[in-house]
């Protein structure tokens, strides 16, 4: 099953979800992710699943709350304003410890912003987004193939941790065409839904209770500690990143998603000239790969963070790098990505080469 097919980004992500066993999709249209619900509305009935268009993102995420409680593989997708609207529900899902996958094809903000690609929802994605002390597991693919692989992985991770997993993409990824291959991930040892989910009272003898309410302060504190222990576990097991030509690097770029592709081109060009440039590319943005930034090679004199935002991931990079070397920033917003030339110019400016 290793045929390569040329697909549009959003459709490839949707197909990956179907291949991962997602059978239920609830969502509300918003550009630039409409191809995901459109694809699901055709595809899910073919595999015995259900596509339901919700009346709003608020309804969609609460459908996900209900659906996830059955233990089946459920997904929604949206883009920035829609994710904001879903935030209360996402908090309930995290609080009730339900597995689900959320796709966020980020567009420019604030407010209605634009429909063009952006990375300006990094804070929202990596800090939970809604109210309360909770985290999503957030994966940020850089190529379509990686998007497909991570989407398939996301469903397993969601079940493993009983936690929502977000695929953090951007409009470029959603709209581009690339050849992809659907590869089944390594099987994981996952909890049996029949032990906890709605619909198995007869079999289990006890009912399922799906809730996030704990009025007793001690109990709510214990619940929070349990969630925190889970997040520490994710931080231990689920950090993913790529180091690219960092060994002898004098300057290391930090970039994720589409921006990392552009940064890679800049690095390759400058390397041809002999400039020692490398990159650390976070793949999981929560949990964030702090370690490679804490342990930069001794050759590194500067770090440059490249984002399609006014500077959000830079905070995490700074936490990792600490005071060892200066951390610089190169960002564009409004639906504009930093160009290869801009990144090169910034590197020359910093290194004086």
């Amino acid at each position, binding site marked *: 099953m290793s045929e390569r097919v040329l697909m549009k980004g959003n459709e490839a992500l949707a197909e990956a979800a179907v291949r991962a066993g997602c059978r239920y999709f609830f969502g509300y249209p918003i550009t630039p992710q409409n191809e995901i619900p459109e694809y699901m509305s055709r595809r899910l009935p073919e595999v015995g699943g259900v596509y339901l268009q919700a009346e709003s993102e608020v309804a969609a995420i609460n*459908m996900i*709350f209900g659906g996830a409680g059955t233990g089946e593989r459920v997904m929604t997708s949206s883009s920035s304003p829609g994710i904001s609207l879903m935030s209360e*529900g996402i908090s309930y899902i995290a609080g009730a410890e339900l597995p689900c996958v959320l796709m966020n094809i980020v567009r420019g903000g604030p407010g209605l912003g634009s429909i063009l690609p952006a990375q300006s929802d990094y804070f929202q994605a990596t800090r939970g987004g809604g109210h309360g002390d909770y985290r999503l597991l957030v994966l940020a693919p850089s190529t379509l193939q990686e998007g497909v692989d991570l989407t398939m992985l996301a469903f397993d991770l969601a079940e493993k941790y009983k936690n929502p997993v977000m695929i953090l993409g951007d409009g470029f990824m959603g709209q581009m065409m690339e050849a992809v291959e659907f590869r089944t991930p390594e099987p994981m040892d996952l909890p049996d839904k029949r032990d906890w989910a709605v619909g198995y009272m*007869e079999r289990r003898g006890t009912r*399922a209770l*799906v809730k996030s*309410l704990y009025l007793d302060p001690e109990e709510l504190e214990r619940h929070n500690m349990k969630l925190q222990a889970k997040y520490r576990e994710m931080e231990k097991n689920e950090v993913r990143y790529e180091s690219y030509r960092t060994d002898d690097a004098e300057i290391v770029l930090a970039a994720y998603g589409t921006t990392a592709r552009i940064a890679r081109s800049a690095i390759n060009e400058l390397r041809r000239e002999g400039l020692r440039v490398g990159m650390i590319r976070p793949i999981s943005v929560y949990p964030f790969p702090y370690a490679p930034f804490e342990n930069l090679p001794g050759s590194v004199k500067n770090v440059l963070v490249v984002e399609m935002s006014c500077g959000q991931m830079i905070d995490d990079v700074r936490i990792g790098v600490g005071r060892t070397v200066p951390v610089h920033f190169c960002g564009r917003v409004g639906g504009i990505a930093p160009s290869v030339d801009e990144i090169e110019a910034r590197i020359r400016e910093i290194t004086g080469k």
Partner: protein
Amino acid sequence: MKETKIFERPKSMSDVPTHYCPGCTHGIAHRLVAEVIDELGIQKKTFGVAPVGCSVFLYNYIDTDMYEAAHGRAPAVASAVKRIRPDMVGFTYQGDGDLASIGMAEIVHAANRGELITVIFINNAIYGMTGGQMAPTTLLQQKATTCPLGRDPGVNGYPMRVAELLATLAAPAYITRVSVAKPKYVGKAAAAVKRAFQTQIDRKGFSFVEMLSTCPTNWGMRPADAANWVEEKMIPYYPLGDIKVPE
């Protein structure tokens, strides 16, 4: 003398004290739901969705699979569960703030899609849990903590007749209004709950039972006065009876 039990706790009702105020009719409504679940023998294939409101702890009282939903969103939660588990029987239980204010979009669209769920709507003309603020169903001139001089239609509009509003839609199969404020009304209320669940089980469509209820605490009345107030003030504005019945 041989003893015969003529009254007992429904099997699908948990053996725990409820937290309701004296004279509150939430408990009666819970019991009617539990009795029907027992009668239909569906305890182990039923899921309920509790609202945010005084009845948030419904999940402690009804012993079936249960969700505690976000404020107003129970119909969206139940819609998804029912689509995924069509052989289960699903109900939501919601107050008037929950269903008719913050959750108006979710109830209208669930009804309009003809979701095969049963909705129990507790209309007590007030926000009970948060301490007596105005609800969409608060009557004209009725006082609430956020309309201390009484509801003024020029400022707050008119009390909403939710059952009638939903009955304008094509998909719902059964829409009715009952009261649980006095024993004489409870028989009809019980029959309505049963018919609503049966409508769902027979896959005839969406079913909705509005129950006129009391909130003596936030109405500032003694329980008996509250029951009379339902009869004298609420029923004339919210007439009892079937509004839409299955074919």
